[in-house]
């Protein structure tokens, strides 16, 4: 790597289900202003702006064009990247690459979604809808994919339904400590277990909400970091991986069914973590990492990711619940932010995982702060079978 890099600013809007009082541009601008304030910078200090969201969710083609008025991109470098659920982390990886060249002073990355303006359902459906494969494509892909993961976990005796509810309650407690989170309501195990079934054993309260909001990060190379911040979050390593073998084609959605390699989602998450561990000499993640943020589109997924990123042995997720290891005061807190089950503005979600780890490393988590964080990992996953792994450290 030519230059070592660090996150020197993080900004988020608060997240809600609807914000009819602001336009998409005004909302994005809120996150940008928050990030600049957090970094003690002005827009003049920014060299490049990279934007990411889902085109058809709001129906904006080349959305970075219109947003140039609020993102700060006017007369600056930049372009748009987009993958899927992992768009936010793809933006992060692009920003990290750009920063590591040393060609820029500071780079701003933005992920957002304003789902109250769009038709998320119809846009998601369009992944599968096909003129040639025109039957059997109206499935709710996210829910059924999680269902297949959930059934597998129950079958392996990795976790019980009650324990899943306990983990969901943990997430709610964390979200209540995060002023930006969308769902900030105390939940009880009974409430979760009695919430309506979506696709058994998956229940409504296990699933992520539909949120509106934006997240922004500011990244700088080492030569600039010293001038900007005495509390940078060093980005030690990052990787992006894609895991689809069978493509989506009309009704054929192999991410939802078992392939010889297991569910495809889980595969890419595991690979992303493995790459990071291998390249950084991490052999005991539970011991060596101080905090983890995962892309928990549902509580079941969070628990599956614990195993996949080796916070515990396969089939041992229940032990982490019994030991309360992943709680805020446990030995390996997962999603102190409340995670995706509390807040899900698609284009922002994966960036928030990275941003929240940076917040923890910088000690700016206020009520959700995990004590003494020296190293944290963010792992993302999208229904697009992209995953990213980002390792962030207090010092290099």
């Amino acid at each position, binding site marked *: 790597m030519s230059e070592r890099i660090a996150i020197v600013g993080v900004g988020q809007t608060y997240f809600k289900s609807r914000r009819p009082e602001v336009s998409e541009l005004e909302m994005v601008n809120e996150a940008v202003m928050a990030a600049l304030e957090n970094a003690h910078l002005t827009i003049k200090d920014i060299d490049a702006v990279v934007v990411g969201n889902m085109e058809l969710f709001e129906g904006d083609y080349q959305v970075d064009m219109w947003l140039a008025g609020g993102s700060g991109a006017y007369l600056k470098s930049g372009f748009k990247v987009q993958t899927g659920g992992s768009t936010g982390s793809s933006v992060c990886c692009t920003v990290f690459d750009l920063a590591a060249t040393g060609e820029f002073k500071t780079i701003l990355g933005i992920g957002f979604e304003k789902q109250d303006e769009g038709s998320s359902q119809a846009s998601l459906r369009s992944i599968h809808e096909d003129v*040639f494969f*025109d*039957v059997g494509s*109206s*499935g709710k892909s996210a829910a059924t994919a999680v269902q297949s993961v959930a059934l597998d976990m129950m079958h392996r005796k990795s976790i019980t339904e009650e324990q899943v509810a306990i983990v969901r309650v943990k997430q709610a407690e964390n979200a209540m400590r995060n002023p930006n989170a969308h769902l900030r309501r105390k939940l009880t195990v009974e409430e979760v277990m009695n919430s309506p079934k979506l696709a058994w054993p998956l229940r409504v309260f296990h699933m992520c909400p539909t949120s509106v909001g934006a997240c922004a990060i500011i990244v700088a190379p080492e030569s600039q970091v010293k001038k900007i911040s005495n509390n940078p979050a060093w980005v030690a390593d990052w990787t992006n991986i894609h895991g689809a073998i069978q493509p989506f084609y009309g009704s054929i959605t192999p991410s*939802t069914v078992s*392939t010889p390699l297991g569910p495809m989602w889980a595969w890419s998450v595991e690979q992303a973590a493995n790459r990071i561990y291998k390249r950084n000499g991490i052999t005991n993640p539970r011991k060596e990492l101080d905090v983890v943020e995962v892309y928990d589109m549902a509580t079941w997924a969070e628990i599956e990711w614990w195993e996949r990123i080796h916070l515990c042995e396969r089939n041992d997720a229940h032990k982490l619940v019994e030991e309360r290891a992943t709680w805020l005061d446990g030995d390996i807190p997962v999603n102190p932010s409340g995670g995706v089950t509390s807040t899900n503005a698609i284009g922002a979600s994966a960036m928030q995982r990275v941003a929240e780890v940076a917040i923890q490393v910088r000690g700016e988590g206020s009520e959700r702060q995990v004590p003494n964080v020296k190293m944290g990992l963010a792992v993302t996953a999208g229904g697009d079978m992209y995953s990213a792994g980002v390792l962030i450290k207090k010092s290099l």
Partner: protein
Amino acid sequence: MNQKAPDENLYVEQIIELPFTESAGKYISIFLTKIRDEGKIVANKCPVCHRIVLPPRIVCAYCKVEIEDKPENWVELSDKGTVTDCMGIDDREVDAITGEFVGTPNPILFIRLDGGDEWTILGHIAKEMDASKYPPGARVQAVWKPQKERQGKTSDIQFFQLIKE
């Protein structure tokens, strides 16, 4: 004049309408032509890993090699198969523009077709509404539309129905 937040949040109702005329390309056209003209389901086979690819593709995603259009690389699958997964449609999605239901109300089946391997799973719909009738392992067979109604789409198969063997 100072700014006062307006009491109303105005909005623009926007409908995007994009017409598409798509070609299925070579491999999917072969697949659909076989369905339409012969009532047969074909797949192709990776020359390296011997995985069967359904629907057929020009490349094996796993080996990243071309599956050439040669007779030995084509495989005919049965229209019978075993259910691996069944998904009931509890609350049907309504199209925001037309107000009509999206898709069919029938449960969606994932069917491992005979003559294939663990990869050859076709998604299609079940004949009956009761999803519990299609547990994993259930045997099903395609019910084809009459020849003259077929258009070269997977809906040329009406649905899959349970069979006794």
